[in-house]
């Protein structure tokens, strides 16, 4: 005599093979979508952090050796309250910034490059940007003060859109999982109709039969979920390597934000198979109870 197993012979119907494969796919896709959501949050915070507290002043190209506009702008900046430093960016650095687009064959003399000043603000003090902008244009007409807000806003908008899309994908995956488990459970109920009626006639409560389906759904979803998680982790690690490689090219230029998941991100991803198991379990229970209610 072995330990009591499930009374319903689930091994004999196709849903037993279908559910793990389905959960594998769901957890894999959900893992990627969730990783995207978490990494976008981190990237957005990083962009915000790196750009907050900095300004860039752009001056028209020098008109000649006697052009004093750079000194005038620096004087305004150094005198402004809240400005910690103002450092002109030399033409060599500017050339390096545009090198990925224009190549190395040009020299600064060939181009009328605007002059840039990198401004750092003191985070402990408030800086009146409107007043600073007014003083700058008064000292140097055509000077442009860029506080990166437009860029940051666009980045934030992009990140939020991508996040909403990823969350929508997650919700969609959850919905598809519920519908699929419900379908598989209904198939199981039809396949095992005779055994279920037998249990029913023996006086089994609906919850007893539901428990059998729940246990089976949980077991299959966990098997598929764990494999899906392993595959998702492998894909994320490969993606991380790939984005790091792209970020490394060109030194200062990153075409893609490097994918970098932290410890707690991995912990959240590790919960996915459990969530999938619980969703499968709850769906199976609800489906069985709803269906059995039709029996006398």
């Amino acid at each position, binding site marked *: *005599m072995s330990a*009591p*197993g499930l009374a319903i012979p689930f091994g004999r119907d196709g849903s037993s093979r279908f559910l793990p494969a389905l959960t594998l796919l769901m957890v894999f896709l959900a893992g990627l979508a969730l990783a995207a959501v978490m990494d976008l949050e981190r990237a957005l915070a990083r962009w915000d952090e790196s750009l907050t507290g900095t300004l860039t002043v752009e001056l028209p190209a020098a008109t000649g050796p006697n052009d004093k506009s750079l000194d005038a702008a620096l004087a305004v900046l150094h005198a402004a309250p809240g400005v910690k430093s103002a450092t002109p960016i030399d033409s060599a650095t500017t050339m390096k910034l545009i090198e990925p687009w224009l190549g190395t064959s040009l020299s600064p003399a060939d181009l009328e490059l605007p002059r840039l000043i990198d401004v750092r603000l003191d985070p402990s003090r408030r800086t009146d940007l409107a007043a600073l902008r007014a003083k700058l244009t008064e000292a140097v007409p055509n000077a442009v003060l860029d506080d990166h807000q437009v860029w940051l806003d666009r980045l934030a908008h992009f990140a939020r859109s991508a996040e909403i899309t990823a969350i929508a994908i997650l919700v969609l995956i959850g919905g598809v999982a519920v519908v699929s488990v419900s379908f598989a459970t209904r198939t199981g109920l039809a396949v095992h109709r*005779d055994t279920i*009626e037998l249990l*029913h*006639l023996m*006086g*089994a409560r609906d919850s007893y039969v539901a428990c059998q389906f729940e246990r089976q759904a949980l077991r299959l979803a966990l098997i598929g979920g764990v494999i899906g998680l392993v595959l998702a982790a492998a894909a994320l690690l490969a993606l991380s390597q790939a984005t790091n490689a792209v970020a490394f090219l060109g030194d200062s230029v990153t075409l893609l934000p490097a994918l970098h998941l932290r410890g707690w991100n991995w912990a959240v991803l590790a919960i996915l198979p459990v969530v999938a198991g619980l969703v499968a379990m709850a769906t199976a229970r609800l489906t069985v109870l709803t269906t059995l209610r039709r029996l006398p």
Partner: protein
Amino acid sequence: MVRFENVGMRYGTGPEVLRDITLRLDAGSFHFLTGPSGAGKTSLLRLVALAERPSRGLVSLFGEDLSRVTRAALAPLRRKIGIVFQDFRLIPHLSAFDNVALPLRVAGVAEAKLRDNVREMLEWVGLADKLDAKPPTLSGGQQQRVAIARAVVARPKLLVADEPTGNVDDAMALRLMRLFEELNKLGTTLIIATHNAALARGFGRPVLHLENGELAATATARAAS
């Protein structure tokens, strides 16, 4: 124990398969239910086994009017009924032991408590050496004996058997009927459907005879006596 008054039954919106059935099975009685194929024997047994609800009339079981019993309260009533099917309805992936133990597990009996009970039942039907055997490895007669052990393991007050000897040879049929007689002597009320009128007559028990969904008057009178 079982009381039917003017009971009718139909499946869905189909025609009535049972009409104006009135009968009474007293506690400890032993009835045969006979009739040709399609007469309604299985439908009548399904009503008695609480597998169906009547479309009309009164059905009373264990003193309870079923029209007043909630769906949830039917489960405990079903545990007082044992059922034997013609096709055995054993669960093929479970051992003989686990098949017989099923009604007790369904009722929530602890594993430690049910073991002796299940062994005793399998001994009673002469299958003490087949505890671990899976149904597909057993003969038809052995499978039906496992099914009988399963039907009686929870000590039901009422045993319903639908053509229990239909798939076994005559010698085995006689052996199974002797088991049913033993059960009846222990106080279990029995109703056994069979198309084998000779077998039913041979045991000298009251016979309920169904024709076209109606109980033949003489048989009903005998049943109520």
